[in-house]
């Protein structure tokens, strides 16, 4: 997993709420490898596969963006990890939103994508700044837990200490759990003694 430390990059002001997993990665693509076109496919492309110029992610002013700023409930819905994997495939490594779907957040942590929750007023300030100055950068500092744009911030964000450590080191959970092999073995011995029908 790619470590995440500091990201200073173009941010795209998506703004919308309820960007669900089926929009992020439509179900009919789940049998194919993740491609750069997967992310928000039906929002970015029409039925002939032509980019929709009116959709903000297609606006050349935000070319090269690595950060998405959105509204509430980003990533609600399905457990499909493709909804997260579609982001780095299209160049995005961080989503800043008012709230997220829980499973989506877990999947972000497994893939080096940083989900940041900020209060609505701070999201609104970021969105206004990015719309006023298309192509402006946002600086995300994970060690300091801050988000800053040229004209607003810094805004502090919270993150679970263990998750932060894994992101900084580029470790997913499998690497961590390797240290608990003996604890699992002794747990199982007691557990199946008490609940033999579960073995």
């Amino acid at each position: 997993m790619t470590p995440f430390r500091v990201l200073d990059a173009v941010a795209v002001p998506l703004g919308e709420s309820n960007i669900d997993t089926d929009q992020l990665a439509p179900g009919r693509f789940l049998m194919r490898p993740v491609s750069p076109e997967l992310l928000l496919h039906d929002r970015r492309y029409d039925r002939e596969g032509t980019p929709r110029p009116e959709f903000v992610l297609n606006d050349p002013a935000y070319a090269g963006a690595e950060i998405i700023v959105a509204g509430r409930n980003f990533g609600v819905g399905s457990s499909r990890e493709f909804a997260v994997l579609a982001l780095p495939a299209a160049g995005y490594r961080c989503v800043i939103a008012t709230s997220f779907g829980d499973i989506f957040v877990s999947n972000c942590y497994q893939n080096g994508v940083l989900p940041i929750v900020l209060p609505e007023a701070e999201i609104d300030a970021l969105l206004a700044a990015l719309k006023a100055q298309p192509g402006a950068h946002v600086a995300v500092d994970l060690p300091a837990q801050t988000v800053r744009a040229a004209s607003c911030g810094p805004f502090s964000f919270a993150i679970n200490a263990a998750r932060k450590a894994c992101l900084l080191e580029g470790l997913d959970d499998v690497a961590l759990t390797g240290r608990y092999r003996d604890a699992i073995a002794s747990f199982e011995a007691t557990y199946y003694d008490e609940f033999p029908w579960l073995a």
Partner: protein
Amino acid sequence: MPPQTLVDKIWARHAVASLDADETLLYVDRCLLHEGFWWNIVDALKSRGLTIHRPNNIIACSDHFVPTTDRSGGFAAIADERRRDLILRLETEGAELGVHVIGMMDDRQGILHVVAPETGITQPGMVIVGSDSHTSTHGALGAIAFGIGTTEAMHVLATQTLWQSPPKTMRITVDGRLREHVTAKDLILAIIARLGIDGGAGRFVEYAGSAIEALTIDERLTVCNMSIEMGARAGVIAPDAVTFAYLQGRTQAPRGADWDAAVASWSTLRSDAGARFDREVHVDGASVAPMATWGTSLDQTIALDAPIPDPADEPDASRRDAQTRSLAYMGLQPGQRLRDVPIDYAFIGSCTNGRLDDLREAAAVVRGRHAAVPAFVSPGSRAVKRAAEAEGLDRIFLEAGFEWRDSGCSMCAGANGDTLQPGQRCAATSNRNFPGRQGPGSRTHIMSPASAAASAIAGRIAGAAEVPA
């Protein structure tokens, strides 16, 4: 010991270790996988040189890509090569790895969340995870059950554990009796409409109260299934005599002395008097009306009789923007009554409403009438299909012009190719009305089996109380 919630009790039994106050290594009893993600999970496992720690406790079922028509031709009849390959990969590789495979041609085949309860794989007190967000369904039998991603599923296969932050809890108490023509689906839709799609975010929700206790297991499964649609990590209902009666004798349920020990253990799985929840909500069951979604998120749900809201009346800017987008996508106007909206299609099935009680509910509405639009029924499993046929439900649907298909996830997410045409409007008993969920440009109205059946008959959104004779 201070009073504990049901969730706390199950959690404590499964805590292997703690990293800090924020992270517990949680033991997993059963992991449920389907062919849509099997390949990602096993590729990841193999690329790290890992093996499956307890293959017997991993259940793999073909449900997302399986066809719902012409199953008699077997695998060769699956027209799409990629889907066929992914189904075959799960079934052959799963068998090689010693996993409990329930394949497409198996007599027990069906949707994971229908098959696991009805075979007794799902049991009270378990921690169950699955590579599907509707794993929340299994909480109906008193288990902690939730969906995970493919990397986490790989972790479970390799270690039979998962890192989780300790549960925040919420109790939704539903008292009073549901009125005639009001179903478990209407109840959960009403709860989501009230609490919002983030109303349960980060929380394990326990459903309690006399109206919940009065539900059958099939109905409880519908309620817990949709917990994820209000953002909850899981939904759970305390196991009771109804649960034990449902499980006794099922092939994977404990037997003999194990059964007695299990029931004794399961009987302790109740929230103690005085247990503290992070949030408590009370719902009057008698106030719930038949509901359906009008928009593209599950909080955009109203009673069938109610007018579609006007975004101009919504004070919250974010919700107003979402409502405006939904109206445009759905091709609807503010003030329109939901029950006046014509439909093009009806779909009865899915892990939310593909069980025998659901098909009985729909058949009671359909009996002796005829569908005005194309409609089909996909029973949630082969066992459900056999049981329905034994009662003659298939005849009722077929005589009314419905197709009577095979079991799978089908038109809930359209992963098997059962999709609508762009712009088509569907009365659906599934769980999500997201844009494009049933195919690009599809318009989905989520409702109960009774209402979907009534809508198919009327050719417009309708409730069971108003179908024409």
